[in-house]
């Protein structure tokens, strides 16, 4: 992939808020029989941004994507592309292209005929030369020059993936929709393709809308993530926002991993809430808006925010090391607290040199900075 000057790389991000939306969902619902697949979705997609729909299967993310593509018509609400309501516009009339989950490449066509398929549908017709030129450039972008006359089923998964991408971007769509495009690839290839996708998006400046159930993929690729659950959008924000300021336990759980402790709010002082667990422990975390004293809440503490030591610390919790999992750059500890149960602690290798490493069965004390733990609504 061509090198992109660093100063140009993030323009899409920075301007995403000020640019007019290229597409939007306005109160969009979709009902299949008795199932509400999408429930009053509201969302604006800015020109040039990389947006992901993230959620478990059945959360409505694919339905949202298919409504943008035109394969499903909304039961109510409006789908807007470039300011125009396109609810009843057939897929073949939309300036939108999709990369399908299993690629859906045409088995009877070779690589360049697959990529040129969309160009051959254009009216007025493009000349053979124009089509060949565009196909050639698309192949260059996905680094498949020389594969023009290959049969698609002779290619590896990663190569097929790139043909599918080229087949979509060659049409210069206003929106590129990607339905779990990397799900069929092995882990290493997936990592590579993630980087390529991101580079590609910055290079060609097309708006990308990705659907995935893989939080890591969404976090590493997107400018903005839309977390979905049961047909609803539960939170939209940048990857960092979602990770640092989840609005609910669901988001905190789905985006990254976290320890959750249930309790009720006892007091709130200077933005720090103290909650009482059922076993009578007092735990502290940053209060989020809308939670008052007496409310049933959930404290979320990310594993990497927990400090662990051999010596007792004020406000620390005494635990026993239950399990130690070596992860290369990190070590994950599962420590047992008599009242809280298993707590997940992640320590970077750098800190954990020499005798700092803890052994299974050892007595330790854990604590965290209350400002780095979040008191959330429990659902």
């Amino acid at each position, binding site marked *: 992939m061509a090198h992109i000057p660093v100063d140009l790389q993030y323009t899409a991000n920075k301007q995403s808020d000020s640019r007019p939306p290229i597409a939007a969902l306005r109160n969009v619902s979709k009902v299949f029989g008795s199932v509400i697949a999408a429930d009053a979705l509201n969302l604006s997609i800015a020109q040039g941004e990389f947006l992901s729909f993230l959620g478990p299967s059945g959360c409505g993310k694919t339905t949202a994507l298919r409504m943008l593509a*035109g394969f499903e018509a909304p039961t109510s609400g409006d789908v807007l592309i470039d300011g125009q309501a396109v609810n009843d516009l057939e897929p*073949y009339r939309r300036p939108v292209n*999709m990369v*399908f989950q299993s690629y*859906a490449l*045409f*088995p009877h066509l070779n690589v360049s005929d697959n990529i040129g*398929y969309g160009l051959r549908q254009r009216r007025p017709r493009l000349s053979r030369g124009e089509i060949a030129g565009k196909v050639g450039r698309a192949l260059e972008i996905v680094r498949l020059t020389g594969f023009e006359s290959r049969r698609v089923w002779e290619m590896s998964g990663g190569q097929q993936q790139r043909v599918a991408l080229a087949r979509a971007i060659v*049409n210069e769509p206003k929106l590129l929709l990607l339905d779990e495009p990397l799900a069929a690839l092995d882990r290493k290839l997936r990592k590579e393709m993630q980087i390529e996708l991101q580079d590609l998006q910055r290079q060609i400046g097309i708006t990308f809308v990705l659907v995935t159930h893989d939080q890591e993929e969404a976090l590493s690729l997107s400018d903005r993530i839309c977390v979905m659950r049961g047909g609803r959008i539960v939170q939209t924000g940048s990857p960092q926002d979602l990770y640092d300021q989840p609005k609910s336990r669901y988001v905190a759980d789905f985006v990254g991993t976290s320890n959750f402790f249930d309790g009720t709010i006892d007091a709130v002082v200077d933005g720090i809430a103290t909650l009482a667990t059922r076993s009578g422990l007092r735990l502290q975390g940053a209060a989020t808006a809308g939670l008052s004293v007496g409310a049933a809440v959930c404290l979320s503490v990310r594993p990497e925010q927990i400090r662990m030591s051999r010596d007792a610390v004020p406000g620390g919790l005494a635990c026993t090391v239950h399990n130690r999992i070596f992860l290369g750059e990190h070590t994950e500890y599962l420590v047992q607290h008599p009242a809280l149960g298993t707590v997940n602690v992640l320590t970077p290798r750098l800190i954990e040199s020499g005798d700092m490493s803890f052994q299974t069965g050892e007595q330790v004390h854990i604590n965290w900075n209350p400002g780095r733990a979040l008191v959330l609504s429990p659902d």
Partner: protein
Amino acid sequence: MTRSERNWLLVAPAAAWFVVMLVLPLSVIFVFSFGERGPAGGYVPAFTLEQYANLPARFTAFKNTMILAPVGTIAAMLIAYPLAYQLAVRTDPKWKTILLVLVIVPFWTSILIRSYAWIFILGGRGLPALLEMVGIEGVRLIYTPFAVLIGIIYGYLPLMVFPIYVSLDRLDKRLLEASADLGAKPLRTFLTVTLPLSIPGVATGCMLVFILLMGEFLIPALLGGGKVFFVGNALVDLFLQSRNWAFGSAVAFTLIVIMLVTVTVYMRVIARLQSGRDDVSIM
């Protein structure tokens, strides 16, 4: 026992069957075709090309077969395709099985009885009588090539529907979505995706029906009324009526050669149409 001995042993029953059921009868026909008819019928050994020289006497039977078999095949294909398409692509999955069974239902009764039904439908008191009621008079259907064609299409339609249905049913529906997504209107999608990908089914169906039609004799005998006869009818006549086995063998052998040549050419053409495609094969 070595591995290769064991392989031979496994192949032996099939090979024996092949020799007894195919090679032997064919050899007999081949040898008989150079013989002569005995005084009381049957076969007398000889070596003469007389029987082959006599083939033009059965020219009409060959002509009828060579016209009606391909026309019937193509007509059955043109009718079967939309039906198979409707069943495979458009039909709600919960109705598919029932509708497919309905396609096979005619096979539950003998083709003989079903052809008799057509004799009545096409005969004087059937369709022509109905047409007379609306003022169209003097239409004669039964015992014409048209009647035979109708019978052929009717009898062989299910055999054509199934292979086409299978190829269309197997077609990945996401390919159709991908085509629409890339800007192709429904007709374009059909012509550039659905049709090329269903060619294997169409080719199989056509081959199946064509080969069977080349040997057909019942439908022309019943609906052609002795006026429209196939090579099959000529064979029935030569072997069972006039007992001219030598000439019958020559006719039969000629038919086999014509069939082999046609099918070989046909498979070459299909192979070229599918050039380089390994994902699908004809049979």
